[in-house]
C-alpha cells in the first residue's frame, strides 16, 4: 500500500490547489515527525456536511478533500470495484462519514490529523494457516529518532502490509522467505529491506531531501519544481531563518546566479543592489520585484514575513513579465495562515554590531604625520609646513601627557565607530476556520548604527486574509505596511556635503585633531593644515544637526477568484502600492574650542544653519485579470493562462528650505525666517499588458511551456510603445523513461531548454521628447527671473532594450536525492541597449539623447549542488553554487562611451576601468631619459607607464581597459550539521574577478590635507629604497601623473565572506508542551564575521565605481528565540 500516485492526483484535481495542498502536507508531516507533536486532531474537531448521490468512492473522497483540509490517499486498485455511495451528512465527524461510506467495502482507514489512508480491512488479519512463513516486527523512526506513526510497511510485490501504530511499531506475520519489506511515509524516502533471517527490522526514514514535490512560485502562479522548464533559483528558507538581516535585499545573497552588493550599512538605508546573471543594460539594471504578485520595493518587505523567494532568471520563467523582466524577476511570497486553531509565533533576537573593516594602517601619530608631510613637500620642492619648533613642542607635549586634548594622537576610526545594539521582534498570529484563513504579523526592528548617533527603527505589519465566500468565489486581501525612521548626521554619511559627507571627513580625520577639548566642548584644531583649513569635527557633526528620513510604504491588494464553468478560474486583483517619504536635513551652527588658544569659533565651511525638508509621494496602482484553465486527457496534461493588466505609476515631490533660525533646537520650516526656497514636481507613467502561458505535459515526461507578453509602455513615443515578448521552453524528465527505471542511483534527471525575449524599459520618463527645461534662471539686480532652455536632445525612435535569453539546464538527483545538482548554461544577448550618448559639446553642450546603441552579451554558466547524509546520529548537509558570467559589449556601432575613469567599448565588459598601464617605478634619471616622454617633470620614483601606441609619448592614447566592475564569478556555499536537537549552519558568499579604484581620502597620501597610510611612510620610493612598492612620497596633488588613473591604483575587489554562522537548539516537545508551547528554539548567530579580501581600505563589498567611502557594513552577533504556541 502506498501513497496515491501523484500523477493520477494531478489529473484528478485542479493542479494548483492540489500542489498547494501537497506542499502543506509535506511540511506538516515533516513537523509531526520532527517534533513528535501528538497530532492535535483536526479530525476530532472538524465536522463536515456532505451529500452523496450514487457517487463512486473516488468522487466521495474528492468531495471530502474539496470541503476540508483532509487529503485522502489510497491505491486505485482498492476502490476500482467499489459500490456507489448515497448518503447525507450534517456536521458529522470524518470518522463517522468514513465508517458509513466504507461499511460495505473491505476497506478501513487510518487518520493522521489531516491525512487519511484507505487500507484493506484484512491487512491486519493474520493468516495463521501457513506455518512455513515467519513473522517480523520492528519500529519505524525518522532521522531524529522519533517514531513515525502511520507509516506503511508492505511486502514487496503484494498488497499485504500494515500501518505502524502510534509508537511507530509494526508487526507482520506470514511473510514469505525471501520477502522484501517496503517502508514508506508521505514526504519520506521509501526504503526497502530484505528480511532474510531477521525477526526484527527497525527502519529510519529520511525526508525526501529536496522536495521534488516542492512548489515554486512562478509568474502568475505556482509550479511543481519537478515540472519546471525554466531556470528558477529559490532561496532556502533555512538559509534565511534567524539571520539578522535588516533589509530583505540581503535575503537573495547566496542564491545561484545572483550578485547582491550591499554598499552601505547605514541603518534604514542598507539596501543592496541586486544583479541577476550579469549586467545587460547601461540603464537601470535592477530586477523586477513582485511581492505577492505586485511590484513592490524589496527593501520594504519584512524579512520575517517572507515565506518563499523565487528568482526567475531565464526567458522561460520571466517572459510573462515582458518589458520589465530583462534584469530578472524576483517573486516574494509572504506567509499566509492555515486552517485550524490559532497559532502564535514569536521570534526575537538581540545583538551587537561592530564595524567589519577599517583601514588598519592609518598613521595616527601626529608627529609622524607631520614629519611625513614635510618629507612629501620636500620631495615636491616645496617648503615644509611643520617647523621643527612645532614638532619639538608636540613631541614634548605628548611625552608630558598632561594635555592630550591639545597634543592629540587621535585614531578617528576608534572615535567614530562603536558597538551598536540591535533588536528585532516579530509576532505572528495565524490560523483559519473552515472557509477562511488569516495571518497577521507585527514586526519591530530597533537598530543603532555603528557610526555614532545613527539609528533606525522599523515597524511593520502584514495581514493576509483569504476566504471562500461561496463554493465558487474566493476573496482575499493583503495589507502590508511598514514605517521606517532613520537618522544620521545632518552632514550625511554617504554623499552630499564636501569631502564625501561624514564618512569622507572621518577618512580625512588627522591625528592632531581631537574630538573634544579639555572642557568637554567640541574641539577645533590648532595645528593648521593647508588644504584642511576648516576642521569639520566629525564627532561634533555626528551629534549636532540631523538628517531624518521617515518613510511609509503600504501595499494593499484585494483579489477575487471565480470558479467558472469548464474548470476555468478567473481572478481579478486590484492593488495600491503607496509610498510616502519625508526627509529632513537640519543643519546646525556648531561652536568649536581651539585646543591650544581656547578661542571659540563656529565650525567653518558647513552648510548654513537651516532646514531642508523634502516630501516624496509615489502611488502605483495595479489591476490584473487572469484566466486559468487546466485539463488532463489520458497521459496529456494541459493548462493555460491568459491575462490582462494595467499599471500606473505616479510620483511627486516637494522640497522647501528655510534659514534664519534662532538656534539648533527648532527644526521646523516655519521656525526660520530668511532665504526660503521651494520646489516640486510630479510625473506619471503607465503600462498596459496582455500575457499568457500554455503548459503541456505528456506522461510527466515531456514538458512544454510557452509564454508571451504584449506590453505597452508610456515611456516611449506613440508607435513605439508596444512590444511582444515570447518564450518557449521544454523539459525532459529522463528518469521517468523506462530505460532509466533500473538505474537506482539516479533518482531524478531532467533536461531543460528555453529561449525567449524580454525587455527593459527603465529609462527616464519622456526621454523621447526634446524637452525645454525650466529652472534655467538668472537674476537681474537681485531679482530672480525665469529661464528656460533645451538642455538635452532626444531620439523619438527609441524603444525598449530587448534581451534574448537562451538557457540549457540539467537537474539531477542521485542516491535517493541525497545528492542533487543543477547545471545551467546561459547566453543573454541584449540588443538595442539604451544609453544616453555623449554628443560633442559644440552642439550646445547638450545632454545627449537616449538611443538604442548596441548590444551586450552575458554568457555564462551556473552550477549548484547539495549533498545531505548522516553519520550515525549526526546529520549533515553541504551545498554550494557558482556562477560564471562573461560580460561583453558586442556592438556599439563603432562608438566608445566614457564615464569618468571608465569606458564602454566593443570587446570589453560594460563600464570597465580605463587608464594607463603602470609598468613599474623609474629608478634613475637615465631610465626616465630613455623612456617615452611622460611629462616635463618626470623623475626617478615616479610611476612608469607603457607606451601602448608606440609613439614615444605617454598620453590618453595609451590607455587600456585595466579592470572590471562586473564579477566574473559569484559563488556561495553552505553547510549544516544536526545532532539531536542541536543544529549548526554556516553560509559563505563570495565574488571574484572584479575591481575597484578608490580615489578618496587615504587613497593617496596627504590628499588635500587628509591623512596618510603607513605604507607610504615606509614603503615608498627613495633613492635608498629603490625597490619600494609605492612611488615617491608626495602629497595627493603634488604629482598629478603618478595619481592619474592607471593600473597601479586598481584594486582587486574580490572577497569571500562568511555571511552567517548559526548554532541553534530545539527544545524537545515533551519538555515544553506542558508549558503550552509547540516549539521553542534558541540560537546564536554571527553575521559577516569573517572576510577574506585583498582590499583593505574599506569593506570590499562597496560601490565599486565610487570615489569615496560609504557607511560601512557591520558584523553582527545575535542571540535569539523562536517560539510558537
Amino acid at each position, binding site marked *: 500500500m502506498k501513497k496515491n500516485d501523484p500523477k493520477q492526483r494531478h489529473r484528478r484535481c485542479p493542479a494548483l490547489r492540489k500542489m498547494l495542498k501537497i506542499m502543506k502536507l509535506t511540511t506538516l508531516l515533516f513537523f509531526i515527525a520532527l517534533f513528535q507533536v501528538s497530532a492535535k486532531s483536526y479530525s476530532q474537531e472538524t465536522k463536515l456536511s456532505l451529500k452523496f448521490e450514487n457517487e463512486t468512492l473516488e468522487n466521495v473522497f474528492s468531495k471530502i478533500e474539496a470541503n476540508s483540509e483532509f487529503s485522502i490517499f489510497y491505491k486505485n486498485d482498492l476502490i476500482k470495484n467499489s459500490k456507489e455511495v448515497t448518503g447525507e451528512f450534517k456536521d458529522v465527524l470524518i470518522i463517522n462519514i468514513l465508517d458509513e461510506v466504507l461499511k460495505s467495502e473491505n476497506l478501513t482507514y487510518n487518520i493522521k490529523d489531516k491525512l487519511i489512508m484507505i487500507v484493506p480491512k484484512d491487512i491486519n488479519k493474520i493468516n495463521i494457516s501457513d506455518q512455513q512463513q515467519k513473522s517480523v516486527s520492528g519500529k519505524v523512526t525518522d532521522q531524529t529518532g522519533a517514531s513515525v506513526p502511520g507509516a506503511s510497511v508492505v511486502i514487496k510485490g503484494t498488497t499485504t502490509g500494515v500501518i505502524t501504530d502510534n509508537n511507530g511499531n509494526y508487526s507482520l506475520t506470514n511473510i514469505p522467505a525471501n520477502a522484501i519489506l517496503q517502508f514508506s511515509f508521505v514526504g519520506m524516502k521509501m526504503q526497502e529491506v530484505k528480511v532474510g533471517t531477521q525477526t526484527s527490522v527497525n527502519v529510519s526514514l529520511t525526508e525526501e531531501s529536496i522536495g521534488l514535490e516542492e512548489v515554486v512560485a512562478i509568474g502568475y502562479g505556482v509550479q511543481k519544481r519537478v515540472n519546471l522548464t525554466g531556470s528558477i533559483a529559490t532561496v532556502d528558507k533555512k538559509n534565511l531563518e534567524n539571520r539578522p538581516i535588516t533589509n530583505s535585499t540581503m535575503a537573495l545573497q547566496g542564491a545561484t546566479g545572483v550578485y547582491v552588493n550591499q554598499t552601505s550599512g547605514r541603518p534604514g538605508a542598507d539596501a543592496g543592489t541586486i544583479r541577476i546573471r550579469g549586467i545587460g543594460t547601461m540603464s537601470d539594471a535592477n530586477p523586477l520585484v513582485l511581492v505577492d504578485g505586485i511590484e513592490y520595493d524589496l527593501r520594504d518587505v519584512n524579512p520575517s514575513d517572507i515565506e518563499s523567494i523565487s528568482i526567475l532568471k531565464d526567458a522561460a520563467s520571466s517572459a510573462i513579465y515582458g518589458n520589465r523582466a530583462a534584469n530578472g524577476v524576483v517573486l516574494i511570497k509572504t506567509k499566509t495562515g492555515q486552517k485550524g486553531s490559532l497559532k502564535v509565533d514569536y521570534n526575537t533576537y538581540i545583538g551587537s554590531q561592530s564595524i567589519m573593516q577599517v583601514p588598519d594602517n592609518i598613521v595616527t601619530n601626529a608627529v609622524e604625520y607631520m614629519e611625513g608631510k614635510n618629507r612629501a613637500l620636500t620631495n615636491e*620642492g*616645496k*617648503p615644509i609646513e611643520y617647523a621643527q619648533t612645532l614638532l619639538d613642542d608636540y613631541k614634548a607635549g605628548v611625552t608630558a601627557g598632561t594635555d592630550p586634548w591639545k597634543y592629540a594622537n587621535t585614531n578617528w576610526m576608534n572615535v567614530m565607530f562603536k558597538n551598536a545594539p540591535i533588536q528585532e521582534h516579530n509576532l505572528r498570529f495565524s490560523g483559519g476556520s473552515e472557509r477562511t484563513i488569516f495571518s497577521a504579523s507585527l514586526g519591530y526592528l530597533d537598530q543603532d548604527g555603528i557610526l555614532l548617533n545613527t539609528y533606525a527603527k522599523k515597524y511593520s505589519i502584514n495581514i493576509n486574509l483569504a476566504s471562500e465566500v461561496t463554493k*465558487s*468565489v474566493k476573496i482575499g486581501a493583503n495589507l502590508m505596511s511598514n514605517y521606517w525612521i532613520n537618522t544620521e548626521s545632518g552632514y550625511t554619511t554617504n554623499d552630499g556635503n564636501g569631502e564625501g559627507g561624514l564618512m569622507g571627513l572621518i577618512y580625512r580625520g588627522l591625528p592632531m585633531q581631537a574630538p573634544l577639548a579639555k572642557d568637554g566642548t567640541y574641539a577645533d584644531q590648532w595645528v*593648521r593644515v593647508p588644504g584642511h*583649513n*576648516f576642521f569639520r569635527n566629525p564627532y561634533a557633526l555626528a551629534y549636532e544637526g540631523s538628517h531624518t528620513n521617515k518613510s511609509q510604504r503600504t501595499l494593499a491588494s484585494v483579489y*477575487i477568484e*471565480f470558479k467558472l464553468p469548464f474548470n476555468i478560474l*478567473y481572478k*481579478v486583483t486590484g492593488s495600491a502600492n503607496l509610498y510616502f517619504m519625508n526627509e529632513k536635513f537640519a543643519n546646525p551652527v556648531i561652536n568649536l574650542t581651539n585646543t591650544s588658544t581656547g578661542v571659540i569659533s563656529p565650525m*567653518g*565651511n*558647513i552648510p*548654513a544653519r537651516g532646514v531642508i525638508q523634502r516630501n516624496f509621494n509615489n502611488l502605483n496602482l495595479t*489591476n490584473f*485579470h487572469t484566466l486559468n484553465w487546466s485539463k488532463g486527457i489520458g497521459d496529456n496534461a494541459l493548462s493555460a493562462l491568459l491575462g490582462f493588466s*494595467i499599471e500606473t505609476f505616479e510620483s511627486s515631490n516637494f522640497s522647501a528650505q528655510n534659514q534664519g533660525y534662532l538656534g539648533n533646537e527648532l527644526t521646523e520650516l516655519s521656525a526660520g525666517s530668511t532665504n526660503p526656497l521651494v520646489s516640486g*514636481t*510630479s*510625473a506619471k507613467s*503607465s503600462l*498596459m499588458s496582455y500575457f499568457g502561458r500554455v503548459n503541456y505535459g505528456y506522461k510527466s515526461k515531456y514538458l512544454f511551456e510557452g509564454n508571451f507578453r504584449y506590453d505597452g*509602455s*508610456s515611456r516611449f513615443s506613440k508607435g513605439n510603445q508596444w512590444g511582444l515578448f515570447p518564450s518557449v521552453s521544454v523539459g525532459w524528465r529522463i528518469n521517468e523513461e523506462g530505460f532509466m527505471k533500473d538505474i537506482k542511483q539516479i533518482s531524478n534527471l531532467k533536461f531543460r531548454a528555453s529561449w525567449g525575449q524580454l525587455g527593459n524599459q527603465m529609462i527616464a520618463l519622456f526621454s523621447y*521628447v526634446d*524637452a*525645454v*527645461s*525650466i529652472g*534655467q*534662471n*538668472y*537674476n*537681474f*539686480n*537681485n*531679482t*530672480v*527671473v*525665469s*529661464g*528656460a532652455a*533645451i538642455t538635452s*536632445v532626444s531620439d523619438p525612435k527609441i524603444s525598449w532594450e530587448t534581451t534574448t535569453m537562451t538557457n540549457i539546464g540539467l537537474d539531477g538527483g542521485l542516491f535517493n536525492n541525497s545528492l542533487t545538482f543543477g547545471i545551467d548554461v546561459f547566453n543573454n544577448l541584449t540588443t538595442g541597449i539604451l544609453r544616453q550618448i555623449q*554628443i*560633442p*559639446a*559644440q*552642439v*550646445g*553642450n*547638450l545632454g545627449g539623447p537616449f538611443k538604442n546603441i548596441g548590444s551586450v552579451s552575458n554568457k555564462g554558466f551556473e552550477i549548484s549542488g547539495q549533498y545531505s547524509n548522516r553519520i550515525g546520529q549526526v546529520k549533515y548537509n553541504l551545498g554550494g553554487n557558482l556562477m560564471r558570467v562573461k560580460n561583453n559589449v558586442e556592438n556599439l556601432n563603432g562608438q566608445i562611451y*566614457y564615464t569618468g575613469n571608465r569606458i564602454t567599448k566593443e570587446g570589453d565588459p560594460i563600464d570597465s576601468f580605463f587608464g594607463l598601464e603602470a609598468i613599474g617605478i623609474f629608478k634613475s634619471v637615465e631610465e626616465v631619459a630613455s623612456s617615452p616622454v611622460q611629462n*616635463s617633470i618626470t623623475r626617478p620614483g615616479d610611476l612608469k607607464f607603457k607606451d601602448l601606441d608606440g609613439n614615444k*609619448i605617454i*598620453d590618453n*592614447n595609451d590607455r587600456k581597459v585595466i579592470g572590471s566592475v562586473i564579477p566574473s564569478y559569484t559563488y556561495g556555499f553552505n553547510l549544516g550539521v544536526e545532532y539531536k536537537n542541536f543544529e549548526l549552519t554556516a553560509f559563505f558568499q563570495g565574488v571574484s574577478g572584479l575591481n575597484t579604484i578608490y580615489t578618496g581620502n587615504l587613497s593617496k597620501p596627504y590628499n588635500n590635507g587628509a591623512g596618510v597610510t603607513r605604507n607610504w611612510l615606509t614603503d615608498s620610493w627613495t633613492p635608498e629604497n629603490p625597490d619600494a612598492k609605492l612611488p615617491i612620497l608626495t602629497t595627493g596633488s603634488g604629482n*598629478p601623473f603618478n595619481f592619474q588613473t592607471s593600473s597601479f591604483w586598481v584594486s582587486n575587489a574580490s572577497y569571500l565572506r562568511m555571511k552567517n554562522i548559526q548554532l541553534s537548539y530545539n527544545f524537545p516537545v515533551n519538555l515544553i508542551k506542558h508549558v503550552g508551547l509547540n516549539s521553542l528554539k534558541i540560537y546564536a548567530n554571527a553575521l559577516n564575521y569573517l572576510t577574506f579580501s585583498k582590499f583593505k581600505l574599506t569593506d570590499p563589498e562597496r560601490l565599486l565605481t565610487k570615489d569615496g567611502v560609504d557607511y560601512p557594513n557591520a558584523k553582527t552577533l545575535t542571540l535569539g528565540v523562536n517560539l510558537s504556541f
Partner: protein
Amino acid sequence: MEKYILTICLGLTFLSCTSILDIEPTDRFTEETFFKTKEHAEAAVNATYASLLGNSLLSGSNAIFFEDATPNAYTYQNNNGFDYIATGIQDAANSSVINNCWGQCYAGIGRANTLLSKIESIPVTSISDALKKRFIAESKFLRAVFYTQLWALYGGVPLILDAPDFEKQANLPRNSADEILSQIIKDLDEAAVELPTSYAVVDKGRATKGAAYAMKARALLWAGKWTEAATAAKSVIDMKAYTLFPDSRGTFFFENEGNSEVIFDLQYKFPEFVHSMDIILDAFNTVAPLADLVNDFYMANGKPIIDPTSGYDAKNPYVNRDLRFYASINYPGAKYKGATVSPTTYPRTGYGQKKYTIYKDNEVPAAIKADNQSELNYIFLRYADILLMYAEAQNEAVGPDQSVYDALKLIRLRAKMPEFMPGLTKEQMRQEIRHERRIELAGEGMYYFDIRRWRTAEVVMNADIFNYLGVKFGTRKFNKDRDYLWPIPTIALQTNSALVQNPGYGK
C-alpha cells in the same frame, strides 16, 4: 451575487484602459509647446545669461582662479586645474577648467543660437518688434562673449550660428581664429545698434550698448587690432554713461553692486545664484597673491620699490604704497575683518586677496561665508578697464598722445597716484600701461589674458615663485611653443574626430 461581482470586476477593467499610455510631461515644455510667446523668448534669453554662471566659465570663483596661472597668485590645491596650467603640465584631460570652459561656452552659444533661430516664429501679437530686436541683440552680445572666451583660450573653434542640431553640427571642424573674431565683431556691432544704453531697475544687469562696445574693445585689444580697439573703447567713453567709482575698494563692495563704473557684471544672489569667493580668497587662500605682485605695487609717490629714491623700506615694506595695494591685498599686519592679519593667517604666501571678498577692514563680520554662500557680482567689464584699453590701444596705434594721458589720469587720480610724467616714449608708456593694468585689475583674472596677448608669459611664467619672506617655494614653467593656447579637451576630441589638436598637445 457572484454574477454581480463578476460583472463589476470586468467592468472596472475596461473603464480604466482608455488611452492610458498617452501621457504628456507636466514639468517641462516640449519643442512643440515652446517659443510661442514673449515670455518664452524672455526665458530663453535669461537662460543664456544663466550660462555665464555655469561651471568653470566666468563663474565668480573661476574668473579669479585665472590669477593662479599668472605671476600674481598661487593655488595650493590646483583648483580647477589652474596650478597645472601655471606649471605648464596641463594636458587635454587633467585640467577641469580646460574641459568645462569649452562645454560651458558652447552651452551659452547654443542657447543664444536657439533664440536667434526661433524668435521669428513668435507671433507679432505676442511680442513687439522693439522687444524682439532687443532680445536678438542681447543674444548676439552673449554669443560674442562666449566666442571671445573660446577664441582667446583655444584659438579657432567650430563656428556654430544655428540652433543646436546634432546631425548637422556634431562633426564640424575648427574654424580659423580670424573667422571667430570676425563673427565676434559682427555680433557686437549688430548688438550695439539695438541695445539700449540703460535699463529700468528690474532689468538692470542686461547687456547694454556700452557693454557691446566694451566687449568689442576687449576682443579687438586682445587681437592687437589697435586702431579699431581704440575706437571701440572711445565709443564707450564718449557715451559718458560711466564714471569711475570714487574709491577702488568700494567698487567691489556688496552694497555698491551695479555702481557707476560697472558696464557688465555677472549677477549673483543668495541663495539661488552663489559662488564661493569669500571662503576661497580668505580661508582657503587658494588665490594666494605672490610676492611678485605685491612688489609690483608702486609707492604712493608713484615710484617702484626698486627705485632707490622711492622711500621703500624693506623692513617695513607695506607702508606708503599705492592705495590699490591696500584695496586688493591682505598682508601681515594689515587690518581686516576687524583684526590684524598675522603671517599665518594666509599660510600659503603670507598674502591674501582682499578684492572680491565682502569683508570690511575694520568690522568683525557678523557671519563668515561658507562654500556657495557668496553673492557678490563679478564685474566682467568696468570703466577702469575701458580707460586702460583705450590708453593701450591708442598708444600702440598712435603713440602716447594727450588722450592716452587723459584716460590714465582718471585712474591714477582715483588711486591718489601722481599722474604720469609727460613725454614718455611709446615704449615707456607701453610698460607703464601694462603695469597699470596689472595693478588696477589685480585679482580680477584679467592678467592671465594680458600676459598671453603681450607674449610675456614665456618670460614671467618661466620663473620661481616666492612668499612674503622672499622664500622660494616653487617654479613655474611655460612652453612658448605650446602654452599660449589651451589644448582642445580630450572629451571634445573623443566625440568629434574632425577636431585637430593644438600644437604640442597629446590627445
